[in-house]
């Protein structure tokens, strides 16, 4: 659904942001994009809904060119974004109004807005907070509100740009729980992060560095590469464990990473084989 061809981007001050990116994203795919700060991952995803326009090359969403201003509204209805800072993307004075902001911009009838807001709040589990102001919501709740706002747009694809980096670990778990729920719903998800453990279950992972895609593949193959450290990334301990076990001739199924309990169980039961 998303095609990126030879995309290069220079910042207004002339520095290079992206170099010749080629990428296709399929409908329903969960794509993880990882990289250290300044690697260009946020710059890349800002091209997906026309917030940034390519300096060279082309980005098309369902065949619509993001450089075409007449298509912009439709593109933004197709691809929504959730950003890093939960507070600056909260534009309503109450939670309910914030979630309604997008549908209101589409000039939908009030009944339809009401329905979308209620559904979205239900999915993120904030239906009891609808009249709360951003001041009385926690960081995690605000970020869930931002996800609800994206859901209320009923877009095909949601881009999550470093949404967990300003959250504490409990809120992170909360957000991850919602993502798990969303994933089954045939939505395309693009998830940007510098924490590799958040994209262990992605369909595909891209590693970016200095404005280029330097690695691409399933998490299993990408997270084996010993040079990830060069790109400023750190393997999650559990993956390191799995990799070391495999190097020692004790290969375990990658799917076991879904739950630590299962992995522990498997290791415990396999002790007889050693």
């Amino acid at each position, binding site marked *: 659904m998303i095609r990126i061809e030879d995309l290069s981007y220079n910042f207004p001050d002339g520095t290079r942001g992206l170099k010749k990116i080629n990428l296709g994203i399929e409908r329903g795919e969960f794509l993880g994009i990882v990289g250290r700060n300044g690697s260009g991952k946020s710059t890349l995803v800002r091209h997906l809904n026309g917030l940034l326009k390519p300096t060279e090359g082309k980005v098309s969403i369902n065949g619509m060119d993001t450089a075409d201003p007449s298509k912009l509204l439709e593109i933004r209805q197709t691809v929504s974004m959730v950003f890093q800072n939960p507070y600056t993307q909260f*534009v309503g004075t109450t939670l309910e109004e914030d979630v309604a902001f997008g549908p209101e911009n589409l000039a939908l009838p009030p009944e339809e807005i009401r329905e979308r807001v209620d559904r979205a709040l239900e999915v993120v589990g904030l239906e009891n907070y609808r009249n709360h102001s951003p001041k009385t919501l926690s960081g995690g709740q605000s970020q869930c509100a931002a996800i609800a706002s994206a859901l209320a747009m009923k877009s095909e694809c949601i881009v999550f740009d470093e949404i967990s980096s300003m959250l504490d670990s409990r809120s992170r778990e909360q957000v991850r729980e919602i993502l798990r729920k969303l994933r089954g719903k045939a939505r395309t998800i693009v998830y940007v992060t510098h924490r590799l453990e958040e994209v262990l279950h992605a369909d595909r992972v891209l590693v970016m560095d200095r404005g280029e895609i330097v690695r691409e593949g399933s998490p299993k193959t990408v997270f084996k590469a010993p040079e990830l450290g060069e790109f400023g990334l750190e393997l999650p301990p559990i993956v390191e464990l799995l990799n070391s076990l495999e190097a020692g001739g004790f290969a375990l199924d990658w799917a076991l990473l879904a739950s630590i309990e299962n992995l522990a169980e498997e290791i415990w039961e396999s002790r007889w084989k050693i």
Partner: protein
Amino acid sequence: MPETAFNYVYGDSLLHRLDPRTKLAAVMCLSILVFREESFAGMGLLIAFFLLLTWISGVRLSFLLRSVRPLLFFIFFIFCFQLFATKGTPIIPLPVLPPSYEGLRLGTLLALRFGLLLLYAALLTASTLPSQITNGIERLLRPLPLRRLGVTSFDLATMMSLSIRFLPSFLENAATIRAAQLSRGLDLRHDLRRGTTAIAVPLIRRSILSAEEVTEAMESRCYQGQCRTSLHELRMQKLDWTALLGLGVFSLFFLLL
């Protein structure tokens, strides 16, 4: 954070349920009455009416009185000015600027006027969500040919509600920056001029950066400032017309009296 003046107080009273346009019109109308009134009897009646509305709204009177507090000094100044500067029968015969009975009367009236004006406004904001107020103002402005000036009523409404939304964040940022600069040895008491720049510059910088993030978030959610609808579409109910009629009768009665 303590509850501050001019805040919304959650409730479900008759006053809360009125359309914001009705309430805006009422506040405007009552303000005119307050400013036209020259007699204490009339002022007493307007105060009584205010107390009646407060009782209906279920908002605590002490909460509303708090919104007058920031301007108390200003009101007191006006009172004193009138008291001493109005010529007439002196209360105490002083050689310069003797306080006069006429001044006392005028000063009290003016002080009551400003106080009452603030109180009616406080009652509006206490019984109406900020978003409802902006919504109401937007609907009232919509027929005006603002497009010729390059803005729409929707733009204005969005600006208003964003200001309301981000004012607390702005103050919070200011406090954080002040604390950060103080911990770096900034001395506000001795060098106010340098101190002000030391706080203002980072504050403005941070606000512009946040504004950019807000813009991105708004654009991503298809904001275009043209036609929008609202989750709470305003509809005048029977209650609103009754209230406006009541207000009309009250004003007429008041003016004829």
